[in-house]
């Protein structure tokens, strides 16, 4: 029976992983299909290329309108409102294309058993930070120092490397903590391993109806939580690595209740994610800010950048919520069996942690293409 059950587990994980990946992948498409800007809903057999192409052309359109709108705003105050609307729309569209920011945030949320609420807060905080970094950079380089584009591009490159290194470090730390939980879950005695496969099949829902109600609603993942909690304390020493951003709740795997979120250090947990993602300013925002500055409309550029960030935050938050929901689904599917379920969830978290590390390293060494810095 052993080899079969091992295979069953692998299969279950594959299913859970596919759910998460497909959910993330479709997130973009769903968003595009239901965008609030009156774009045509794709037909029954939507051509992905069509949607992506349309998305790209919309982004370009909004972006190109910004310069003429800033010019117009010099003489016509009402054009500022147009500028804000365009910037907001650009922010939403810009973030809808897959990018490292939402990938890191989504992976972090999955790795850390975070709530949708926290996902939304993280998305907004990192987008706000991104906007503020852009404003600060142009404010210091262009306004105070009157630096050239070449100097600014150098600064952008330095910030970019720092940001990617932070993501990699953040990912390494997640891998370290989550790896411990995962290995302990592997070593833990597996109760009814075959159940894992049975529970992963959607048609078994009816049969496990009572269980699901219990695990999924009244006491979310109670057994998983206890296991994770205990193991966390076992390995508490490992958690104190330099750059520790989490408080003692780290690795505590039951979903935080609202009182915990507001508790001491509650929001501090996500600072690492916010900082790593929000540090790198968007090239588009910097171009807009410098352009606005040259037109004597720096304040309009700042307003546009902040509104752009708001649009970005809405899209990233939507994707983050979808990621968290997908994980909840995976948890419910695997929750019926104690041992196998915990193992799958720990494995999923470990995988998500590895993904954050992969993103950081990939971006740092140029394996992953991010938006280029404007250096010409």
């Amino acid at each position, binding site marked *: 029976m052993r*080899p079969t059950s*091992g*295979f069953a*587990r*692998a*299969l279950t*994980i*594959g299913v859970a*992983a*596919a759910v998460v*990946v497909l959910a*993330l992948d479709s997130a973009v498409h769903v968003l595009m299909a239901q965008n609030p800007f009156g774009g045509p809903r794709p037909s029954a057999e939507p*051509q*992905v*290329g069509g949607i*992506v*192409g349309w998305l790209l052309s919309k*982004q*370009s359109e909004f*972006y*190109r309108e*910004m*310069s003429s709108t800033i010019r117009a705003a010099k003489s016509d105050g009402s054009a500022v409102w147009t500028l804000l609307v365009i910037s907001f729309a650009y922010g939403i569209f810009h973030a809808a*294309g*897959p*990018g*490292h920011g939402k*990938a890191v945030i989504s992976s972090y949320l999955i790795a850390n058993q975070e709530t949708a609420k926290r996902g939304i807060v993280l998305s907004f905080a990192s987008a706000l930070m991104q906007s503020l970094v852009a404003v600060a950079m142009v404010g210091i380089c*262009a306004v105070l120092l*009157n*630096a*050239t*584009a*070449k*100097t*600014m591009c150098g600064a952008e490159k330095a910030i970019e490397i720092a940001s990617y290194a932070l993501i990699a470090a953040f990912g390494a730390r997640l891998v370290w903590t989550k790896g411990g939980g995962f290995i302990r879950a592997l070593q833990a005695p597996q109760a009814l391993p075959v159940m894992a496969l049975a529970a992963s099949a959607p048609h078994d829902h009816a049969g496990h109806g009572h269980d699901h109600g219990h695990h999924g609603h009244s006491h979310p993942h109670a057994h998983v939580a206890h296991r994770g909690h205990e193991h966390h304390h076992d390995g508490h020493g490992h958690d104190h690595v330099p750059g520790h951003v989490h408080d003692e709740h780290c690795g505590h795997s039951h979903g935080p209740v609202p009182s915990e979120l507001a508790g001491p250090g509650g929001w501090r947990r996500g600072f690492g994610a916010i900082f790593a993602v929000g540090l790198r300013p968007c*090239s588009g925002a910097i*171009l807009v800010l*410098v*352009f606005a*500055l*040259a037109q004597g409309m720096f304040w309009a550029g700042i307003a546009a950048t902040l509104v752009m960030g708001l649009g970005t935050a809405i899209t990233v938050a939507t994707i983050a919520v979808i990621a968290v929901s997908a994980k909840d689904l995976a948890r419910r599917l695997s929750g019926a069996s104690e041992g196998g379920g915990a*193992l799958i969830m720990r*494995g*999923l978290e*470990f*995988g998500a942690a590895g*993904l954050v590390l*992969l*993103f950081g390293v*990939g971006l740092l060494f140029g*394996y*992953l*293409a*991010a*938006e*280029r810095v*404007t*250096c*010409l």
Partner: protein
Amino acid sequence: MNNFMRGLLGLLLLAASCALGAGAAQAHPHVWITATSELIYAPDGSITGVRHAWTFDDMFSTYALQGIETKTKGVYSREELASLAQTNVESLKEFAFFTFAKADGKKEKFQEPVDYFLEYKDAALTLHFTLPLKTPVKPKELALEVFDPSYFIDFQLDDKNPIKLVGAPAACQLKIQRPSDGTANAQKLSEQNFLSGDNSNYGAMFANKITVDCP
């Protein structure tokens, strides 16, 4: 356990490939260039190089001019822009000058750019530079593409006479394919492109293709 680890590895690979595909999809242009180019021929009918004139959009032009001191505000002389032109051509080197030439199907290389300068007119900067071919060629068919593979820069050929043949044999025929007018054999975006991770040449869909046939 082995099977389990294999499953996990599969998960990571799957996720990584998604991430790789995601990288390029993020790209959308931040800089727009309106290009005109000249193909320069030697008296014997061989092609010696390409002379570009690239006009940047007003947002990027303004960005590039940030911090450049001038005698008269808003007026930039060629000398005042010399250091920026130098920066431009140095940066462009990293991207192979976004200029890709094939002579009878064989890739041709370019030397360092010469005769480069910037011009400021109507709130836009125009970068002029000449790319000499490493070795002059006399092919039956020359194919020239101008595009940014990562699509950070959008290249548009100018509406009127974007390509000139300077000193070409009379029999040579010029053909231009623009990405927007549907004549370009642009590779259709498909989910496959985005998930396969093969996006290194993503911007090729937006390439301007120029072919010169000299029988």
